[in-house]
C-alpha cells in the first residue's frame, strides 16, 4: 500500500513534465523546427522554484494558498489512479467522484485565485474555465459509467487496476469522449492554445498570468500532472492488463502533439458543441453497454 502510494506519486511527479516535453517536441517536428529539449519543463520548474516572486497588492491570502491547494489536490487525484494492475490505493463505490471532485476543488481555487487579482483578463479566463469544465464533467462521468458496466464493478480504480477489456467498440466509444475532454480540461488545441496568453481564446494560461516564482511553478506542475492523470486513465482503459502500460502515456502525448499540429483551434462558441458531441458519443457507448440488441449479437 505505502509502496504503491510512493510509486504513483513519484511517477506523477517525475513523468508529468516529460509529457509536455514530448508534446512540444512533436509539434516542433511537425513545424520543421528542432524544438526545445525533452526536459525543458524540468529546467523551467527548477528555475521558477529558485526565483523570488512578485504579487499584486490587490490579492489576498487566497492567492497565496491557491497554488498549494491546486498542486496537492491534483497530485492526490493522480495518485488515486493505479498505474499498473492491482495497485489501486483506495476503492469504494463512486471513488471516481472523489477523484474528479478533487480536481474540481483544484479548479475552484484556480478560478478564485484568478479572480483575486481583479484583472479583467483573468476574469475572462476564469469564466470560460468554469463553464467548459461544467460541460465536460457529465461527459466524463457517462464514459466512466460505461467502463464500470463493462467491468461489472462500482469502483473506478478497481476497473482500471485489473479486469479484462470488454468489447472494443464500446471501449472506443468510452475513450473518444475521454480524449476530447482531456484536450478541453488540459487547455490544449482545439479548445485553448497553451502557447498564447493574450488571444481571445485564452483560458488556462491567462488564469495564472499574475503568478510568479514558486506559485507559478506549482501551478504549471499541477497542470502537467493533470495531463498525466488523464492520459494514464485513457491508457488504463485501453490496456488494463499490462504492467508497463503507463509507458503508453508518452504515445498519448505524441498523439496530442499531432492533434495540435494538424487541427486549428475552434472558435469559442463552438466549444460547447464539441463537448456536447463528445457527450453524445459517450451516451451511445453507455447505451450499448446495456442494450439488449448488443447482447443478442
Amino acid at each position, binding site marked *: 500500500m505505502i509502496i504503491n502510494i510512493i510509486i504513483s506519486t513519484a511517477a506523477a511527479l517525475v513523468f508529468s513534465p516529460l509529457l509536455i516535453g514530448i508534446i512540444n517536441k512533436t509539434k516542433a517536428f511537425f513545424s520543421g523546427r528542432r524544438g526545445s529539449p525533452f526536459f525543458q519543463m524540468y529546467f523551467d520548474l527548477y528555475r521558477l522554484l529558485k526565483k*523570488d*516572486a*512578485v*504579487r*499584486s*497588492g*490587490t490579492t*489576498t491570502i*487566497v492567492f497565496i*494558498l491557491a497554488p*498549494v*491547494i491546486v*498542486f*496537492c*489536490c491534483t*497530485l*492526490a487525484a493522480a495518485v488515486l489512479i493505479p498505474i499498473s494492475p492491482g495497485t489501486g490505493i483506495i476503492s*469504494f*463505490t*463512486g471513488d471516481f*467522484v*472523489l477523484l474528479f*471532485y*478533487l480536481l*474540481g*476543488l483544484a479548479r*475552484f481555487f484556480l*478560478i*478564485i485565485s484568478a*479572480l*483575486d*487579482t*481583479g*484583472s*479583467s483578463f*483573468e*476574469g*475572462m479566463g*476564469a*469564466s*470560460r474555465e*468554469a*463553464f467548459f469544465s*461544467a460541460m*465536460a464533467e457529465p461527459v466524463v*462521468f*457517462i464514459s466512466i*459509467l460505461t467502463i*464500470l*458496466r463493462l467491468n461489472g464493478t*462500482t469502483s473506478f480504480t478497481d476497473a482500471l487496476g485489473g479486469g479484462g477489456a470488454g468489447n472494443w467498440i464500446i471501449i472506443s466509444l468510452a475513450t473518444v469522449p475521454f480524449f476530447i475532454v482531456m484536450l478541453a480540461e488540459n487547455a490544449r488545441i482545439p479548445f485553448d492554445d497553451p502557447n498564447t*496568453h*493574450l488571444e481571445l481564446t485564452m483560458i488556462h494560461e491567462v488564469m495564472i*498570468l*499574475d503568478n510568479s*516564482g514558486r506559485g507559478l511553478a506549482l501551478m504549471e506542475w499541477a497542470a502537467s500532472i493533470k495531463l498525466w492523470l488523464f492520459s494514464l486513465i485513457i491508457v488504463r482503459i485501453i490496456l488494463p492488463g499490462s504492467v508497463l502500460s503507463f509507458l503508453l502515456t508518452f504515445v498519448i502525448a505524441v498523439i496530442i502533439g499531432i492533434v495540435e499540429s494538424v487541427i486549428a483551434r475552434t472558435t*469559442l462558441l463552438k466549444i460547447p458543441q464539441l463537448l456536447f458531441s463528445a457527450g453524445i458519443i459517450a451516451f451511445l457507448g*453507455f447505451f450499448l453497454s*446495456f442494450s*439488449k440488441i448488443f447482447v443478442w449479437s
Partner: protein
Amino acid sequence: MLYPIFIYLASLVLTGALSAAFYRNHRFSKYFAAVSNAILSLIMLVFLINRFDSFHDEVFKTIWSLPMAEFHVGVDFLSLFFMIPLLILAAACSIYGSEYFKEHRSGRFHWFFYGLLVAGMMMVLISRNVVLFMISWEIMSFSSFLLVISEAQKESVRRAGWIYFVTAHVGTAFLLTAFFLLGSGAGSFNFELFGLVPFEVAKSNLIFIFALAGFGFKAGFIPFHVWLPLAHPAAPSHVSGLMSGIMIKMGIYGILRVLMFFTSYQTWWGILLVIIGASSGIIGILFAVGQHDIKRLLAYCSVENIGIILIGLGLGVLGRAWDYPLVSMFGFTGALLHIVNHALFKGLLFLGAGSVIRQTGTGEIDSLGGLFKKMPMTGSLFLAGSIAVSGLPFFNGFISELFIYAGAITGAVASAGSIMPMVCALAVMALALTGGLAAAGFTKLFGIVFQGNSRKTDISSAVDVPSMMKLGMIFLSVFLVFIGMMSFLVIPFIEKPMLLLSGEAASPFIYQLSDIGEKVSILLVALLILMIIIFTVGKIFRRKTVTDVETWGCGYTKPASSMQYTSSSYAEPITSQFGLVLAARKELQSDNEIFPVKPWSFRSSVEDWFLSRVFIWFVKLIDRILSLLRWFQCGRAGVYVLYIGCIIIILFIWKFVL
C-alpha cells in the same frame, strides 16, 4: 423525548412573548430573546443527540374538542432526524439575528414570531393527526410570512410577501386534498391508521401526486419554486437562513411522511422524482448563475439543492420499487444527509450574505468587490460555504452528493433492463452538471463580491461584523468541516431514519456507508497534512516577495476598478449558451455615433418565466373561475352575520345530531 419537546415549545413561545413585553428596553429585549432561544435550542440539541441511540418511538394522545381531530403527537426517527438541523440552525440564526438590525429596530413581535416559526416547525415534525398537522403547518407558514414582511415599508417586500402568502395557501389546498384522500381511505385522520390500510394503486398514485404538489410549494422545487427567489431576499437574513435552511425541508419531510404511509412504492414515482429533481437542479442552478443579487442567487441555489435531494429520494424509491436495496440505501442516505448539509451551508451562506448587506448597504453583486480584505472572517466563512455548496471535498456537501452518486452508480452498473440504467445515468449527468455549474455560480459570487476591487460601492469604511454575528456563522461552519472530514461519525444518525424509508432489506449492507465515509476521511486527512507540509516548507525556505505592485494590466498602465470582470460578464457564456432555459435579456443603450458622445449603458437580466408566465397565468385562471362566486361577498354586514349563523347551525347539527 416528548415532554422535553413540550417544554421547549412552551419556553420558545414564552421567551418570545416576554421579549415583546419588554420591547421598551430594546437592547435587553432582543438579546434576551435571541440568547435564550439559542440556549434552549442547544440544550434540546444536546439532549436529543444524547438520547439518539437509546431512543424508541413515542406517542402521546389526548382527546381534543375540534371535529375530526385528536391531539395526537409522536416522535420517530424521521422526525428526530429532522430536528437536528432545525435546532442547530435555530440556535445559529438567533445568535446572529440579535445584532442584525442596525439602524432600524426590529418590530415588537419579531422575536415572538421567530420563536413561533421554530415552534411551528417542531410541531409539524411531531404532529400525528391531520388537523393538528395542518394547524402546525399554518403556524409555520403564517409566522414565516410575518417575518418575511419585517420591512414592509418597501414595495418589493410587500409584493414578495404577497406571492409567498398565495403560494403557501395554494399548496395547502393541494395538501388538504391529499389528506382527505388518505383519510377517506383509512376512515380516520390519524397518521398511525394511514400506514395500516393498503391503498389501491390508482388511489395511491393520486395521493402521491397531490402530496407532491402540496409539499412541493413549500419545498420549492421546479415548477413550484416561484416564491423562493422573492421571499428570501425580502426577509431579514437570519430569517432567510432559517427559511431556506430548514423550513423548505419541511416540504421534503412531508413527502417522506406520506411515502411512509405506503407499503409498496410505484416505479414511476421514483422516475418522476428523479426527473423533477434533475430538472430542478439544472434549471435552478442556471437561474442562480444568472442572478445579480446575492440573496436571489442563494435562493435559486436552494431550488437546485432541493433538486439534488429529490434525485436522492427518487433513487431511493426506485431502488425499493425494483428491489435493489443498495440503490435505495445510498439514495435515501444521500438525500437525508443532504437535507442536513444544505441546512448548514445554506444557513451559513445566507448569514454571510446578510453580513455583506448589513456592512455595505447593498446586495448588488456587480457593485461590490474586494470585501475579503475588509471583512476577513466573513469572507473566509463565506468561502467555506461556497466550497460546501459546490459539493467539493473537505466540506459536507461533498459527502451527501457522493452517496447520491453512489446510489446512481450502483443502479447504473448493477441493474438489468434498460430503464433503470437510463434513469441512473440521468441522475449522474444531472448531478455532474449541477455540481459544475454550482462551482461556476459560487466562484462568481465569491470572486466578484470578496475579491478584486470594489466596483461601485464605497467600502473604505466597511468593517467586519460584530462578534455575535461571527459566532453564529462560526458555529455553523464547524459542522461544515466536521461532517466533511469525519463523516463516518455522522452516519450512525442517518442509518435508522434511512431504514424506515428503504425497508429492512438494506440493513445487511449498512456497513458500506461508514466504510465509504472512513475511506474518504483517511484520504482527506492525508491530503490536508500534505498541504500543510508543503505550505510550511514554503514558509521555511522563504523567498523575497514584492507585494506593492498593481495587477498586471497586460501593458495597460491605468487599470480602473470598473474594468474588472463583472458578474454579468462572468456568467455570460453560460446564460447565452443555455438561452433556451434562461431567456436572458440584454439591453444596450447607445447613441449610434462613431465617436460616442453620451455614455452607453448595458444591462442584462434573467427573468424567471415560471413566475411571469406559468404561475401568474395559473393564478389568473383560478381567479377567473372563482370570480363566479363573488356574489357571495356582497359587502353588507348583516349578510355576513347570517353566514356566521348558518355555519354555527351546520356545525351544531354535524357535531351533535349526525
